[in-house]
């Protein structure tokens, strides 16, 4: 029943490729990494036992080319493929092809991926088994009356692609007069991102919290949850700061939401690591979706439970039993993750490209850095702008926040604009400190979170540092006697 996995191919890039590689190697296994030419200098490629270059029409296409990656896996004689997150991680067809090639797919069964990947089917499945879902209109039920049924739910509404995930193609509609045009726009985005233009509409909960629960299931029918993560701090439906425990939940609510997640995983017959996402507001929660993979924010769970989720994924994929029960999974202290993005919060979070001219991670107690970047590397527009994650652990939330701020302020990252200063301002902002989170918080607090312009002393210091670090300008100044130079400036 069990099958030893000695070599793992990591079908991903950036920080998650390196994070998976660390556990693969630390558990005595060999790591094979596939990479596009743009990633040739990455740490994961340098540290891999074998790195194989892959190509495609675009850099992203290379990492989405399942056939090419399986061919590499066969040639390298790997036992298993870990898909990470994004790319091929929630592609049931890829999981089937991997299995057909006699290779273990580190993740759930293709059927579980397919069920949860279809947001409409997943929602119906969960609702039929008595778990809470939001009022909705589903296009497939009767396409002709879709818009009318959506309108009848009453505003505000949230349009979602049936095949979607990760916030792509989602639209909030507060004025139902705009519903038809927003439906067409969401359809166009759904078509392009997922090759599927089908939609559904849900009643949108104002000021909602996003709370999700980590689950693990083995091949022997055991399912446990590893408690919740609150991921309400978002911009454009994408998470920016995640933490555990959630500051919102009372103990009884925490048990209810975590038990619901484990119950859903059991109903699916779920194996390996997964996350059940809920919307929480006004003391009620309902099912949003299930992500059938490792999540970006999994490290906060690791820091409070002391369990390495990638190691658990490998053990489960080998057919081992979990070997522990729910009572053995404890939440110790508080953990916060900060996603460092190459983006400019002052310009509507526009992604930024450039070269990382200097990079120094600080040493702060309780800090873990999961990074996909190194000094000298170019950050291109070809991939997601997330550069790294700073994850801190503290005895309680206040200590975790203090350590997180220390880590941000001591990080040295030069060469391109990032959201680092913005993250620090969020952590210092009163609603965040009070734990009063919701998914619209960053928009609501935009004015308070905006960076103030530098004061005159700082401007003077910046010009001084710029001028003195410019060898050409220094040489020019050296060539002019001080008296004449000063006179020149007075004349102006």
């Amino acid at each position, binding site marked *: 029943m069990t099958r030893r996995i000695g070599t793992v191919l990591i079908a991903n890039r950036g920080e998650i490729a390196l994070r998976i590689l660390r556990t693969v190697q630390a558990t005595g296994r060999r790591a094979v990494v596939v990479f596009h030419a743009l990633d040739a200098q990455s740490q994961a490629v340098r540290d891999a036992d074998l790195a194989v270059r892959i190509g495609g029409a675009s850099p992203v296409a290379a990492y989405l080319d399942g056939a090419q990656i399986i061919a590499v896996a066969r040639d390298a004689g790997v036992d298993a493929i870990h898909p990470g997150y994004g790319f091929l991680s929630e592609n049931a067809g890829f999981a089937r092809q991997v299995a057909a090639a006699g290779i273990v797919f580190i993740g759930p069964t293709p059927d579980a991926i397919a069920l949860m990947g279809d947001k409409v089917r997943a929602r119906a499945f969960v609702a039929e088994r008595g778990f809470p879902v939001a009022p909705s209109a589903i296009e497939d039920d009767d396409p002709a009356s879709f818009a009318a049924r959506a309108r009848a739910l009453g505003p505000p509404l949230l349009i979602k692609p049936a095949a979607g995930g990760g916030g792509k193609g989602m639209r909030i509609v507060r004025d139902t007069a705009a519903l038809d045009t927003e439906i067409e726009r969401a359809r166009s*985005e759904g078509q392009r991102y997922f090759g599927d233009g089908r939609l559904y509409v849900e009643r949108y909960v104002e000021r909602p919290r996003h709370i999700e629960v980590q689950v693990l299931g083995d091949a022997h029918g055991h399912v446990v949850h590893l408690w919740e993560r609150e991921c309400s701090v978002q911009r454009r439906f994408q998470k920016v700061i995640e933490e555990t425990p959630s500051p919102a939940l009372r103990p009884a609510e925490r048990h209810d939401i975590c038990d619901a997640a484990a119950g859903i995983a059991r109903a699916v017959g779920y194996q390996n690591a997964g996350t059940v996402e809920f919307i929480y507001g006004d003391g009620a929660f309902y099912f949003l979706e299930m992500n059938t993979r490792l999540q970006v924010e999994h490290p906060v769970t690791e820091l409070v439970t002391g369990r390495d989720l990638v190691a658990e994924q490998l053990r489960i994929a080998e057919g081992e039993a979990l070997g522990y029960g729910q009572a053995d999974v404890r939440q110790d202290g508080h953990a916060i993750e900060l996603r460092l993005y190459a983006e400019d919060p002052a310009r509507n979070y526009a992604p930024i*490209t450039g070269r990382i001219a200097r990079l120094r991670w600080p040493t702060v107690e309780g800090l873990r850095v999961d990074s996909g970047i190194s000094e000298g590397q170019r950050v291109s527009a070809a991939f997601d702008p997330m550069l790294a994650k700073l994850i801190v652990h503290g005895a309680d939330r206040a200590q975790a926040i203090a350590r997180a701020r220390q880590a941000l302020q001591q990080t040295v990252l*030069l060469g391109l604009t990032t959201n680092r200063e913005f993250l620090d301002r969020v952590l210092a902002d009163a609603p965040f400190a009070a734990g009063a989170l919701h998914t619209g918080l960053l928009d609501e607090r935009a004015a308070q979170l905006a960076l103030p312009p530098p004061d005159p002393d700082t401007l003077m210091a910046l010009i001084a540092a*710029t001028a003195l670090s410019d060898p050409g300008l220094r040489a020019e100044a050296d060539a002019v006697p001080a008296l004449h130079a*000063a006179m020149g*400036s007075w004349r102006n």
Partner: protein
Amino acid sequence: MRRRFDIDGTAIDAALLRRPASYALAVGGDIQPIDLSPPAADGTQVLRVGERAFAVHVARDGDTAFVQIAGRAFSIRTIEPLTVFAHAGAANADLTARAPMPGTVAAVRVQVGAQVSKGETMMVIESMKLETAITAWRDGTVEAIHLAAGQTFDRDAPLVSLAAEAAE
């Protein structure tokens, strides 16, 4: 030694002056002695401006300096006087729509030579999961489409140009 320094969009003119032992910086009527120490092992440099001292990190890429000071990073571009002049004289600025952010062209809605009216969508770009319509900012004739659907671009890349308006 006079230069214009562009600090995240704020332009300040200043002059670097040689002093017997060090340098001074002249901004407006204010002249202050300045000094920048060599980097310590961790890359930190001590910057002195008048009586004050700052721990800074400085990295350069051509005419741009990246400076981290008090936990905040800035990029400062040095502009030579000639360049400032050339930019001021560029009259074509309103002829071309440029990319507000890096991204991909999702769709091209017009052809070269087409007449467009103000507000009409000429191109749709996609960046970070959002579609943005590039609309005509005035009535005119499409002179050039700089990118095709599917192509990626960086910030400030030209997207669509309109023909110059005939003088009336």
